[in-house]
């Protein structure tokens, strides 16, 4: 591997034009965005881009030397392929720097129709090994793959050594504990999933009900959790609810917690990670600004200081305030799990 001449790219979420500007103003190298429909995996009401806001956002970022990536990362549903292909055409027309795709049929369409438009394999593409990534490189010429949050650091390192595309990893944000693109829990309960409708636990299926036993959060009628009066309540995502297994009630799949890789940034740089991604297109511009500023500072420090790098208390404090349930984890990177 060649010695690095610059730090990994910091890729930040832009769920709206104000969030995009916040990311650019606070040091993102690239932002990622999507359309207001099922073609992207954060298809939530009130989020994402129409023609006017996208053109303004792309101009804002690119005129400042930053890159814009467009996520078209759900799976074209039977008989509706045209909508996804049109999204790719739109991305090319707008002059984004790359499209982030999950579906192989759509990847081939992009490759053939817009060969000059760079293609990234989305985390929704579920590529967890270099054979999968190299297959997409050879078939569709992908420039980059985003890894699901399931690999340990040493596995990521081994993958990078054998992958023929750049590798992007998640650095901060809500922790998806399942392999992205391979989780149907949401549609099992609600009928809509990230793969089909671009949503996980859609808001329209959520109900909050005060009861004598506490505040109940339901998804499509299924009790996800029940909170005591003084207990902070999270968004009722299925994998982060409390359930009973063998008469024990606990977070059987995952606690509400956020991924935070600050502590391993030097290692991520060392092993050749090309980009670090921040999750959260559903978050506010203020959140995006704070996380971007902190990650920018931390990545630059880690790149300059390498093994002398230490995580500043102020960064940790800042990110802790923005974390789910005020909890943070290194997730699969160090496999600390009980």
């Amino acid at each position, binding site marked *: 591997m060649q010695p690095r001449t610059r730090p990994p790219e910091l890729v930040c979420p832009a769920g709206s034009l104000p969030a995009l500007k916040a990311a650019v103003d606070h040091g993102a190298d690239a932002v990622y965005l999507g359309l207001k429909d099922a073609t992207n995996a954060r298809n939530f009401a009130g989020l994402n881009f129409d023609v006017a806001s996208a053109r303004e956002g792309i101009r804002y970022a690119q005129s400042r030397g930053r890159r814009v990536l467009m996520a078209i990362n759900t*799976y*074209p*549903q*039977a*008989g*509706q*392929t045209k909508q996804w292909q049109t999204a790719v055409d739109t991305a090319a027309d707008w002059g984004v720097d790359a499209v982030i795709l999950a*579906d*192989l*049929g*759509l990847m*081939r*369409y992009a490759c053939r129709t817009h060969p000059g438009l760079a293609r990234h394999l989305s985390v929704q*593409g*579920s*590529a*967890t*090994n*270099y*054979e*999968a990534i*190299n*297959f*997409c490189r050879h078939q569709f010429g992908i420039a980059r793959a985003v890894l699901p949050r*399931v*690999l340990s650091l040493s*596995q990521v390192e*081994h993958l990078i050594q054998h992958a023929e595309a750049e590798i992007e990893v998640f650095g901060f944000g809500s922790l998806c*504990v*399942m*392999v992205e*693109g*391979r*989780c*149907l*829990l949401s*549609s*099992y*309960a609600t*009928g809509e999933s990230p*793969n*089909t409708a671009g949503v996980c636990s859609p808001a329209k299926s959520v109900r909050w009900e005060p009861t004598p036993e506490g505040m109940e959060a339901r998804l499509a009628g*299924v*009790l996800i*959790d*029940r909170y005591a009066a003084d207990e902070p309540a999270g968004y009722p995502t299925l*994998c982060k609810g*409390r*359930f*009973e*297994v*063998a008469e024990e*009630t606990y977070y*059987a*799949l*995952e606690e509400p917690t956020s991924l935070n890789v600050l502590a391993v940034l030097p290692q991520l740089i060392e092993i050749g990670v090309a980009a670090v991604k921040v999750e959260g297109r559903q978050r506010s511009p203020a959140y995006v600004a704070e996380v971007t500023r902190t990650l920018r500072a931390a990545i630059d420090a880690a790149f300059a200081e390498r093994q002398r790098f230490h995580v500043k208390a102020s960064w940790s404090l800042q990110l802790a305030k923005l974390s789910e349930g005020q909890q943070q984890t290194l997730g*699969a990177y160090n*496999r600390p*799990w*009980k």
Partner: protein
Amino acid sequence: MHLTLGPILGYWPRDQVLAFYRDAANWPVDTIYLGEVVCSRRHELRLDDWRDLGRELVLAGKTVVLSTQALLESESELRTLRRIVDNGEFLIEANDLGAVGYLQGRTGFVAGPHLNIYGQETLALFAELGARRWVPPIEMSAGQLAQLMAAHDGELETEVFAWGRLPLAFSARCFTARHFNLKKDECAFRCQEFADGQLLRTREGEPFLTLNGIQTQSAATHSLLGEVDALRAMGVTHLRLSPQSQHMAEVVRLFANALQGERPASDAAADLVEAGLCNGYWHGQPGMRWKTPDARS
């Protein structure tokens, strides 16, 4: 239309696996999928054992397919994958793009249910890559499947997941190990104590999911027993029955009878499962729902 037995998704002791297939050799199933799909730490049977078993089943008149693991992370898992693909004897079911990459251009393979083939272009691409059969994602509805099947030229066989706990998700984390406060890498193989996984209930006691190591399944058993006629009319060639540890011979018999034209009672199989039946996905609804098949004259 043929019946197939999908790969065993639980971690069964070796003797139980061998006994299961000794019985299955006499069941009216056409094809049997062998191998470990869920977790590479599970190796009561290794590749050579699966091959030996496969040869016996071939002698019993079955077609045998070796299934590959759905979540491939490490080099050792890739090595196992390559050995399976290079077996030179049996057809392969690919459950990950890594396997597809390795299989591409070789003799035909089965595109498994975890490859996310939702649209006609993607299906056509897999056919060009060498797939001879595909298994649609389990969340696909009958309406969507009908559209896809109308769009392809009919040379590709279609196998629908017709019976079993739905494989809903794969994780970095082992939920069975987590339940016992064990690290994933030092799990003591506790999942072997639960042949059909551990039931997860809501705090109201409603059965909801099943923990099966790194895999999350539905608690309810997906059943298309009442839809056999519709599946056949659509051109589906194979129905996959996902093995459970109890009553599997009876499940196969019910489906075989349905293929022979016997109309099963809508909940004919309800007594054979732990936590009820579901078929919502097939009807374009949440997967956990149950819709009584239409009464037909």
